[in-house]
């Protein structure tokens, strides 16, 4: 998935799992347990936490 981050003007290439996490967050603020539930319970918690940390580093998401 390709995303454009308007505040920085950067374009990012995301792996599918990261893209899926980002799409969930586009619907509104969430947390890891809720995102795991939204994925049907199949998402790996540790992986999801790592992906969110990477997105936070990129400035694409922020911690509430």
């Amino acid at each position: 998935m390709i995303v454009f981050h308007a505040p920085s003007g950067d374009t990012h290439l995301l792996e599918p799992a990261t893209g899926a996490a980002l799409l969930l967050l586009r619907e509104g603020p969430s947390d890891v347990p809720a995102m795991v539930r939204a994925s049907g319970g199949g998402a790996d918690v540790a992986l999801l936490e790592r992906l969110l940390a990477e997105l936070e580093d990129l400035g694409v998401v922020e911690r509430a």
Partner: protein
Amino acid sequence: MRVEDLDPPAFRERLRGEGVRLRTGPFVTSLRTTYKELADAIHCVYLDHEIEEGGFADFHVAIVPPRGIRRWIRSQALFLLDGWPLFEPYPGDLTMPLFEWGLNWCFGGAGHEYLILHAAVLERDGRALLMPAKPGVGKSTLCAALAHRGWRLLSDEMALLRPSDGMVLPIPRPIGLKEESIEVIRRFVPEAKFGPLWHGTVKGTVAHLRPPADAVRRAREPATPAWIVFPSWRRGVPARFAPHGRADAFLRCADHGLNYAALGLRGFETLAALVDRCRCLEFEYGELAEAVAAFERLASEPAG
């Protein structure tokens, strides 16, 4: 009025005096020069291009010798935009390459109403083929061959994408060929008309191929993007297409975007729409005739 309506002496005289307003696609360049060899080369390879009489010019360009001793000894030439030198002085015997590269700089640096990609663009039956590529992979050679084998040349150098509807606009100009590509095209397209050879440029010997007259006369007809093809030439390999992932195609196109970053979200959306509507392919070839045949098969596939 077209360049061909002036004979070379009259064209030279116009360039020395009031200048010529040369239309290339959506851009008009007001050009003046005192160099006879440049005037003659432009007359030769821009023969079918329109000359605007008066009106607005997007760029005011002059190619002139500098003041002082460099006018005569190891002569140099300056590319002036709005009266200011754009680059360091260039060798005075390479004025045509300076003109062509300077125009690329002008269009790429100021044409921000379009998303501009460094790519060759050709059209067949209303469908545009975009070939983004870095120098040296055989893009211009392939483009020159296709432009003389049933495809309409929109540009050898830049794809102009209109953000409002995603159409690609023609900007047909001479095709710059270098080194052995010049002879390859002379053999492949015997009827092709070249300007003079320019030796000793940073790219070696270069020559400019006059674009087909039909492509220049249809320069106001945009085309619908249909294919993005990343070409590469390798000696001895058979011509073949292979699918190319859309995400990577997007990034490679962005990498070839002359003003992608400057356009921000508009550039992203325009490029995303382009990649979404196009079939994305890699293309490898070793023989030009095989390559042309492969593109003929591609063009015969139904749209969609």
